[in-house]
């Protein structure tokens, strides 16, 4: 164990890279998820079809294969990206494809009455989506988004295979120097575990924070709380 403490600066550097991948990857995932998810719901075939192909291709192949393709094969087509950029991009494309289906599913499962009410009030499709359907769908998306983010965290370890100096890469480096395999990998497993537990706490908290019927649930009566009351707490 003392060797791990000796090399803790290496691990710390790796952890920072992992956290950068996590944050940048998550932000880009969100952008891709909404873009692809909404595009797949479009009535225009030329918008809907490419989105569907993107989603199915990135969900249908392994992330590690995508990572290798973007790192080793893409340069042969003349596009060369540094490892870190490939890492963030592939993490976001892969998880974004999963999250796009979450976005689509949540929006589609809104009661038809919401759309009908908008039509009756003359609210156009863009405003309807932006002001009515999407805000209502976000609480329904949060649990699934939580899974996507925890998944993204775990998948960051794969980028060590394309020369990104993340936590896993640094762990391998320490193993190569010291030969302390048990200590190194136990530490890595514990650090990743703590990170994913923290992440799921964050998700649980935001689920409670953004729940539509926050007040009602606490009382056991599923009332849709009024905007003024919902911020008041659980009484």
């Amino acid at each position: 164990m003392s060797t791990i403490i000796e090399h803790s600066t290496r691990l710390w550097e790796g952890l920072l890279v992992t956290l950068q991948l996590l944050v940048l990857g998550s932000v880009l995932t969100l952008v891709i998820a909404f873009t692809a998810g909404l595009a797949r719901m479009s009535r225009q075939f030329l918008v809907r079809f490419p989105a569907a192909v993107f989603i199915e291709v990135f969900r249908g192949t392994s992330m590690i294969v995508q990572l290798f393709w973007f790192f080793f094969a893409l340069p042969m087509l003349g596009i060369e990206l540094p490892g870190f950029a490939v890492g963030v991009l592939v993490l976001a494309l892969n998880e974004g494809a999963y999250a796009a289906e979450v976005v689509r599913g949540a929006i589609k499962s809104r009661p038809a009455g919401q759309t009908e009410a908008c039509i009756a009030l003359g609210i156009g499709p863009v405003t309807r989506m932006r002001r009515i359907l999407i805000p209502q769908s976000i609480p329904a998306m949060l649990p699934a988004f939580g899974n996507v983010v925890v998944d993204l965290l775990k998948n960051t370890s794969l980028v060590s295979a394309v020369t990104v100096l993340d936590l896993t890469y640094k762990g391998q480096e320490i193993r190569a120097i010291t030969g302390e395999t048990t200590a190194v990998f136990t530490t890595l497993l514990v650090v990743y575990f703590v990170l994913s537990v923290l992440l799921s706490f964050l998700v649980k908290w935001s689920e409670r924070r953004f729940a539509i019927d926050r007040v009602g649930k606490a009382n056991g009566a599923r009332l849709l709380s009024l905007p003024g009351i919902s911020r008041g707490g659980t009484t």
Partner: protein
Amino acid sequence: MTWDNEFALSILPDLLGGLWVTIQATMAAIVIALALGLVVAVIRYLRIPVLSAVFGFYVQFVRGTPLLVQAFAAFYILPDYGIVLSPLITGIIVLGVNYSSYTAEVYRSGIEDVGKGQWEAATALSLPVRPTWTRIVLPQAVRSIVPMLGNYWIQMFKDSAILSLITMNELLNVAQTIGSSEFRYLEPLTIVGILFLAVSYPAAVLIRRLERRLAITS
């Protein structure tokens, strides 16, 4: 340097060989996941004081850590303790153990999905324990369990590519070997992607259809 058809065709047999290894390894891992998952689920269900909590933590821990790090850990640590296994066997065990945690949760949620009223009705009719399980609970649970398991099997098939990093000689590893010896990565890696898609996409469509067919319509 662009796509070379002749080269692509010449490496196809090797890659198909790799795909076969991937499929076999996935199937072996599925068997481990099904069996070990059942053990974990039953022990958690029985609420044995310390043991159930330990297995609950096991599920959390395995699900909260990356498969790659688990694979590295098994691959590098086990030989230190005198357990020398081939990369193929190590990979199969790691993949199976990893997904046993998901499988255990599938069994659990499948049984919990069966309405409380079904249990109450069985008690009200004083149905013995065994037929309550075999005639009432399990037939209903299976309907939601099978599609969930199917989705995890596809996930396992795709995740098996990660095991190439512990030198298991599966599809991606074969492609990497070809790539590094021929200095051409475009063809092998693109074919790998197509092969993964060619198996997982039809399988996913099939499971979606199965899910709809098995759904309990009220």
